[in-house]
Structures are given as C-alpha cells and as structure tokens.
C-alpha cells in the first residue's frame, strides 16, 4: 500500500480519498460530534478500518469515526522525517576498542513519536548522542547484523553472529557486546558458548526490558554496564549482562549457559539458575562473585564451530501426554529430542513404546527437568530407571533450552549417538555443574516476616 494512506483500509481509506487528503495532511474535519483540527497520522495495521487518526495541536492523538465525518479540508501538510541526531564518537588511543553487534530488540531503538514506529538508534554517533557516557569507557564501533525481534532469531542468525564474533576477535577487538532482544537471549548466549570456545575476550549480551524511548528505560544503563564489561573485565566468556535488581543500581553478569529469562516484564528478569552469577557490575566497578571463570588472554587460541542440526525439538511433558506427539517428530525426521520431564525427570507409561521407537530410529533423546532448578535423577524411582532403559539419557542439571541448542550443535557434528552423548554430557562452559551450591536456588517467598524485613533494608 502506498505510504500516502499508510495503514488505512476501506471504509476509512475511501473517505480519505473522497476528500483528497492523505497521511500528513493538516486538516479541519467537520463531524457530527463537532469540528476537529489536526494532522492525519498513519494508522496501525492491526486497528479497525473505521477510524482516522488525528494528531491534535496539543500533541494528543484521537480517532475520528468515519461515519461521523461530514467534511475534511486540507489546510497544509506536515510530514515528519524522523532522524536521530548523530555526534561523532570520540576516539582515544588509550581506551580499549569495543565492538557492538546488533541483532535487534529494544536496546538501541527509539520511537517515532508521530507514528509510534520504533526506529533503531544504532550507529556509534547515534549512541553517543543518546548515551554519551559510553565514550568515557571505550572506543566504540558498531555493526548491525540483523534487525529482528528475538523470537525470530534462529540457527541462521546464531551461526552468522558466531562467525562475525570470530572475525572480530581475529581483528584484535578488546571486547564484544551483542545487542539482542531479551526473549531468547539465553538461547543465543548458550549456543554462542558452544560455537565459540576459548574466546580470549569478553562476549557480552545485553538488551533492555523497557525500550530506550522512555525516561525510565534500563537500556542506557544496561549498555553502559555491558560496554564496561566488554572493555574492562577479565572474564573471557559469553555472558548476559542485565539488571540485578529493578532499581537502577547494578547489573549481574550471568554465565551464558546457566542463565534464563524468568519474568515476562521485570527489569531484573535474568537469573542464573542453580548457581550464582559471575559478577556484579556498576558504573564504577566490576565485582567478581566467583573465581572459576575463564580469564582474558592475549592469544587468539579460540575455535569457532558453527555446525548445527535443525531437526531437534523440546517436548514439555504434561500429564496425559499421548505418544502421537513424539510419533509426529519421528515421522518428520527429527534427530534429537529434549524432554522437559516432571520432578526428577519423568514421563508417563503410555510414552514408553514411542521412546523405544526413538531408540530404534537412532533419535537422541535427553531428559531435563521442568522444575529448572535441580538435577535429573532417574535412579530414585522405578519410572526413571524404566525410561533410561528405553535409551533416554539424563542431562544432569542442564537447562532444557541449553540442552536443546547443545543437542542441535552436537548432532551438527556427528551422527554417532555415542559421540553425541560424550559431547552432551561433557560440560563446555558450566552448562552441567558437578555441584549445586546452597545459594544456587533462591526464590524468596514474599510475606514471610524475615523476607519482608530484608526487603525493607535493601533497594529492590
């Protein structure tokens, strides 16, 4: 559709044409509810077709029902061409060089206030214009790889991102930041942990839970924390850097294979599961919380292995699950299945025959737990032992999403399921841990007096 009538469908479209007005026309409208003056704005494609959106002089938008319109007169045109101001990002030879790779998401975007469309702000100049603090930390260069919402990230994007990171490390970049939508950030952080091994520099994934067009956004501070980590930290791993508390205080650096988005909207949505985070970072310092991380090095002894088998699935078990679900995976040629089982790693008896069929079809089946915290332990109950007898392999405390990407990666390398098993159960970077510390599982229960006392004394 022509931009002249952006988003409008009949009958509204017909009314605009009848009165020879378009989007961005400055108009006076005569309606059965009175006269309205303003600029005709584009309409959201998902909204109904019976209203015309008008931006009034006071800045408010309103919708006018087309069946009330008796006349429209164009008095002028005021098209908006939105542009983010750019200021050249300063270069300081004393400062580390950080490369920001963009895949999409709200970390680096702002809203076109007239249309409501999100415009990416991404070039170093644009970022310097809106987050000037970055220049105090490093020399920043950027490259936009994709502009996709995080649900649209997949193997193709993972592979390309990993390869791009490899080229950057080769070039001698001191740290890499990846802007990413938050929904699947933990899938990407996990696969990058496998595809890029032994990175000599920090690889920091960052996003925002509140878009950068709002004053309370966490985007700028997240970006500052991530860039600081990439530039200055000695943690050479794939990490997720996002708010620790909801307050504007510090970020947590989570190991890429143990992190998960745990709240649909909170700023502090990312948590390390079954362990503690790597470090805390604020504007002034990076404070490690543990010492067993991979250190920054000067060599370029890293490997990139991006082979990936896409015919892998996660099956989230539920009571009364029927075998046809798994049958269909077999029928469709799937080569690997990760089950998120109940409790210690269980499914019901009716699935046994189809699990056996998986084994006969050379399909790798791994068991994880939908409790997220804790290990698969299939010896405790008879059910578990029976399921193992059908060839299902317990994946210890690997998170289901991590097991999913790792299985795809392992099957990308080999058809030999014994070889796959070795890869799967041999931790590359903390996706399986030997022990779970007592403070690796903390979900405080609100309302408990001791917890309330604690909440009163800290900023959340």
């Amino acid at each position: 559709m022509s931009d002249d009538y952006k988003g409008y469908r009949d009958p509204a479209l017909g009314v605009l044409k009848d009165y020879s007005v378009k989007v961005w026309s400055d108009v006076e409208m005569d309606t059965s509810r009175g006269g309205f003056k303003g600029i005709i704005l584009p309409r959201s494609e998902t909204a109904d077709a019976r209203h015309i959106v008008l931006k009034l002089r006071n800045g408010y938008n309103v919708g006018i029902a087309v069946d009330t319109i008796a006349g429209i007169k164009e008095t002028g045109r005021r098209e908006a061409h939105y542009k983010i101001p750019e200021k050249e990002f300063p270069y300081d030879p004393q400062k580390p060089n950080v490369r920001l790779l963009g895949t999409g998401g709200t970390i680096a975007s702002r809203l076109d206030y007239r249309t409501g469309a999100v415009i990416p702000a991404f070039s170093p100049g644009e970022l310097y214009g809106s987050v000037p603090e970055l220049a105090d930390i490093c020399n920043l260069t950027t490259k936009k790889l994709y502009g996709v919402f995080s649900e649209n990230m997949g193997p193709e994007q993972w592979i390309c991102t990993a390869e791009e990171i490899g080229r950057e490390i080769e070039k001698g970049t001191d740290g890499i930041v990846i802007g990413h939508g938050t929904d699947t950030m933990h899938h990407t952080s996990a696969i990058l942990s496998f595809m890029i091994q032994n990175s000599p520099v920090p690889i920091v994934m960052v996003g925002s839970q509140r878009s950068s067009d709002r004053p309370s956004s966490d985007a700028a501070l997240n970006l500052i924390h991530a860039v600081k980590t990439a530039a200055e930290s000695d943690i050479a791993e794939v990490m997720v850097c996002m708010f620790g508390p909801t307050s504007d205080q510090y970020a947590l650096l989570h190991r890429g294979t143990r992190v998960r988005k745990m709240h649909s909207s909170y700023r502090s949505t990312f948590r390390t599961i079954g362990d503690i985070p790597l470090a805390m970072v604020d504007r002034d310092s990076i404070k490690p919380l543990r010492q067993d991380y991979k250190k920054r090095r000067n060599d370029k002894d890293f490997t990139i292995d991006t082979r990936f088998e896409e015919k892998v699935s996660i099956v989230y078990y539920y009571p009364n699950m029927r075998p046809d679900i798994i049958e269909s995976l077999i029928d469709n040629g799937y080569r690997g299945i990760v089950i998120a089982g109940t409790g210690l790693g269980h499914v019901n008896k009716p699935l046994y025959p189809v699990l056996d069929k998986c084994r006969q079809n050379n399909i790798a089946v791994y068991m994880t737990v939908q409790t997220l915290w804790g290990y698969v332990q299939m010896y405790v109950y008879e059910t578990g032992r029976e399921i193992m007898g059908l060839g299902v392999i317990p994946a210890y405390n690997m998170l289901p999403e991590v097991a999913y990407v790792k299985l795809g990666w392992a099957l990308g390398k080999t058809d030999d399921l014994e070889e796959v098993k070795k890869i799967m159960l041999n931790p590359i970077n903390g996706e399986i841990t030997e022990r779970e510390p007592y403070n690796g599982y903390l979900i405080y229960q609100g309302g408990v007096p001791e917890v309330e006392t604690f909440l009163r004394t800290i900023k959340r």
Partner: protein
Amino acid sequence: MNPEFKSFKDMTDADYADIGLRSGLEIHQQVLTEKKLFCRCPAGCYSEVYDAEILRHMRPTLSELGEYDGTALMEFKTRKDIIYRINHETVCTYEMDDTPPFEINQKALDIALEIAMLLNYKLVSEIHVARKQYLDGSIPTGFQRTTIVGIDGWIPYRDRRIGLIQLGLEEDACREISDIGHTRIYRTDRLGMPLIETVTEPEMRTPQEVADVAEILRRLVRSTGKVRTGIGAARQDVNVSIKGGTRVEIKGVSRIPLIPLLIYNEAKRQHSLLRIRDELKRRKITKETLETKDADVTGILTQTAWEPLRQALSRGERIRCVNLKGFAGILRHPLQTGKVFSKEISDRVRVIACITRLPNILTSEGTEETIDSFIWQKIRKTVSAGDLDAQILVWGEERDVQTAVREIIIRAGEAADGIPNETRQALEDGTNGFERILPGPDRMYPDTDLPPLEIPVSRIEELQKNIPAPVWERVPRYRGMGIPEHLLVPLASSLQAALFEELSEIEGLSPVRIAVFLLEKRKAWSRLHLNINRLDPEAWRIFFKSAAKQPALLEKGDDLFKTWLDESGLELADELKKYIPPALDMEAVEDRIGGLLKSEEGMFPDLQVKHRYLMGKLMPGCRGHVPAEEIGQLLRRRLEEKDISHE
C-alpha cells in the same frame, strides 16, 4: 521601586485590563473508582507505611528534532537519585514500571465521558493513550499515561462563555516526601489513580474571575457524585501571562480562595521582569552579549564569620563567585511581594544544582550584615569586577557549584529576554517559586503498549442518561420556586439536586423547607458528627411524605433526625411514629367537637364564619388522622344541629 503597580486590594478590573492579564486553569480532579486507571490496585488507599524502596534515575529522551526538551535537560542536569517508597497493598509491579499496563479502567472512562458531556465537550470517537513525559520522577515510568476524551467544551460565565480546550483522563502521580540535595523521595500510594484534567482557554481577565470559574467547574464535576472529595482530591494549576509577557504555569494550588492573590503576585512578577528587561536593554545587555567571569574564592573567605559560609567551609565545600557585568541594582529589583530578583537565581540554584540548603547564594547587593566589605573588595578584584557590576557567591560540592555557576549565568541572560518559560510552584503565602522549565509540546508520545479504544455511540447514549442537568439550567428554575439566593448554586450543584426536584413534586410541601433540610440541616448534622450516611434518598422520601400529611414533623424534624442519626437503631418509619401524636378515630374527633362547641360559645355573624373558625381550632390536632373533609362535614352537621336546638 514599583510605583505604578498597586497593592493587591487596590487593583481594579481596569488595572488588570491595563496590564493585559490573561489567565487559564487546569483542574485535576480524581474520579471515584474502586481501582486505579491502568492496573487493579485499589484507588484511594493512602498509607504512609512502606514495605520496600526502589531507586531509579530519569534519563531524557530526544525530541523529534533531536533536541532535548528544556525540562528534560534540566532534570538530567540535576542528577537526582529518585527513591520510591512502596506498600504492597497499594502498589503493584505496574506502577513500578515492571509490568505493561492493563486495559483502561472502564468505570473511570465512563465518568470522564459523562463529565465531558456535562461540560459540553465534543467527544472523540476513539481514544488513543499518550505518554506525557515527566522527568522529575513523579511517575516511575517517566511519563504519565493520558488520553483525551473530548475537545472544545464550554461553560457559561456571567454574560459569556469560557472555552474548555480539552478534557483528559490520566493517572495521578506520586507525592513528594522530600527533595534534599541529590535525593528525592516519593510516596506511591496515590500513583496511578484516575483523574480528569479540565483545561480552560486563557479567557479569564482578573484574578477573581479565575477563582469564580474554578469554583463553577468544581461544583459542576461534583454534581455528578462521581468524583473524589477531600484534601488533595482536586488540584488547580493556573497559567498567567500579561501583555508582552510569557505564559507561566503555576502548579499545585490546593484551595480556590488562594488563587486571586497568587495571580496578582505572578502578574506583578512578570510586570517587574519586563521592567528589568527594559533596563538591561537600556544598558545594552543581551543574552548573547552578557559578560560574566567566575572564580573560586574559597581561599579569600576562610576567615569569614558569616554563619552560612562558615558552615559550608566546615563541610569542606567550595565557594565560587560569578561577576555579572553591568548588573548593578538588578539583583535587588523587587518582584513578587517581599521578593527580589536574586530569589529567582537562588531558586534555580536550589532546583537545578541541587544546592538545597538555604541561603544558597549571597549577592553583592544584599542589605543584611554578611561578609566584610574589604573581603568583598578582594572578591571583586578576583573576578575583575567594576562598579556597575554585581556579584553572586555560591557554595557547595565542587560539581554542584559548577552546575550552579552555569545556571546563574543562564538565568541572568534570560533576564534580558524578559520572562522565562517556567513551571512554578504555588506557595502558601500567595507567592510562587521556580519548579522547572515549562515543557515543550515535544513531550507527547503515543503509548505503544495499548491499542486505540472505540467509544461507540451506544455507550454515549447510555451514559447520557446519568448526566445531571447543568447548574446553569437549574438555578433559574429553583429561583422560580422561591429558593433563596444563597442556596441556589449550592443546591443546584449538589448531589441532592435530583432528589430535591423529586421531593418538591410532593403536594403540600414548600420547596424552601425541603432545600433547607437537604442542604443546611444535613450539613449541620454532619458537623455534629452524626451518621449522615443513613440519610439515603429513601429516608428523605419517607420523612417528607409523612411531613406532607403532618406538617408538625417539619418543626420537629431537627430533633427527630438528630436522635435517629445519633444512636437510634429504629427504622425511620418507627422513629417517625414517636413524633406523631396517637391516632384519632372519628369518635375521638366527635368528642373534640363536643368539647370545642362547649368552650367556644363566642358570637359569630353566621354559621359559615363560625365553621371556618372552629375548623382552624380543630385541624392541627387532627391532621393526618382523619381527612379534613370528613371533619368539616361532621362539624357542619353538629353546628346545624346546635343551631336548630337553639331555635
């Protein structure tokens, strides 16, 4: 000093016309709903107890033209830590900006639409929620969700109409607890409550007119019975400009009677600022040519005895001096009652540089005993000051002092332009102080979290049924019914108006008596802390229907209600029985007639007159028991019998 600006009480309408005063109102009125506007937290649950604190910073976002909004930039300069105190009964993750908004509260929207119709607004067919940016932290998101339901309304005032620009429905903000240094603390219980914003055209020409219009609008919205009342439930902002001046917004006027003095003082302030501008123009000083020099003068002042500086030094603070070339005499130019120009500068330093401990500046033009003149000499030398210059000292932490110096220079430069675009704060003494730079139109963004919402005709027609008749229609009608002038508007705008109209249909009752009960007596009982909640429409109906038959009840009504409202567990109908004399039957009436005929043997010209006279004696005791007609017939028969027996 300011000879031609008269005192508040001497100002006439003509004087205000001379200076070209124009003023408009923005009235914020909370509407009465159970829950908040965009989440399901309870509305109107206020509590000072808090369970947790959240820390946030506000960051300016760029405007369409790539400029920072003036307010935004200022707020960013201030570098405030904003602390929200939250109570989990009154606040959820929505208000703390950790959850997207829920669907708009439909009840609140209905109320806004009703009030818009009452105020003659043109309704929009589809509402779009916008984000109005506020960077002071008063809303944790950094913006207020707001939507317009109507434009171009009006109300009648005297012989003209006052135009109403728009009616918005929006969420209420936090309440500030304190703002000291770089920390501002907010309470969040009020946050997110629905309120309507009524904006008038700047069509009021005197301070009194503004107060009048505010009062009319207040009464009108209250007449719906769907708005909150009590402290803080309604707040007024006024905007003021004079000829040659700039529109200045004054926020947070809590009581309407304070409005006139406030407007007078602002008019006077603007008038004086324009004179300062003219004087600077005469001295050939413009914003661009203003010459300043500043220097650290901490070393010169180490021995000072002046307490504020002595304390500053003991805290390890720095002192800087700014020289404003050619500014001699300007800093002490009077503005509002009791305030001089340097107060404007002190305000800016307080708000923008966060130097909140007062005094925060010292000028070379003060009249009080502060620092020795030889020290001033040294300071002047340091900043190369001449005799026609003025100096300002400012002290605090190094970074804040730097900000303060920049701000002092900015404000001094603005003096050459006249009146800065500002949002100011109403103070209790009728003056006002700087709050922030007036935000530009660029601070409105569409809210991408919520879809547009259609307001179908059927919904409007349904709501139309609830709308009370406007006050201006009721008043002349009530006047015709004989209601005294002082009760006209209060009655017409009261929640009792519809009930009053219903009750005044009852035969045999005087509307004035009804009005007195509904308004004055009710108010008096309320003052006695009686439980006036028992006075529902049904109670009034029972009372007045009985009183129509038993006029004596009207006399006894005050005692009756006081007893009933105070402690009586009785139903009103039973309470009434206590005040109605025991029932008379026909036989008892006959006895009374007998007694009366014996005692009233007076001379009457004829039977007709005698009948009338005796009826007058009989009826007060019998009314409501036996129909007057029957009593009349019985009496006539007895009189005639008596007449015959005489013959």
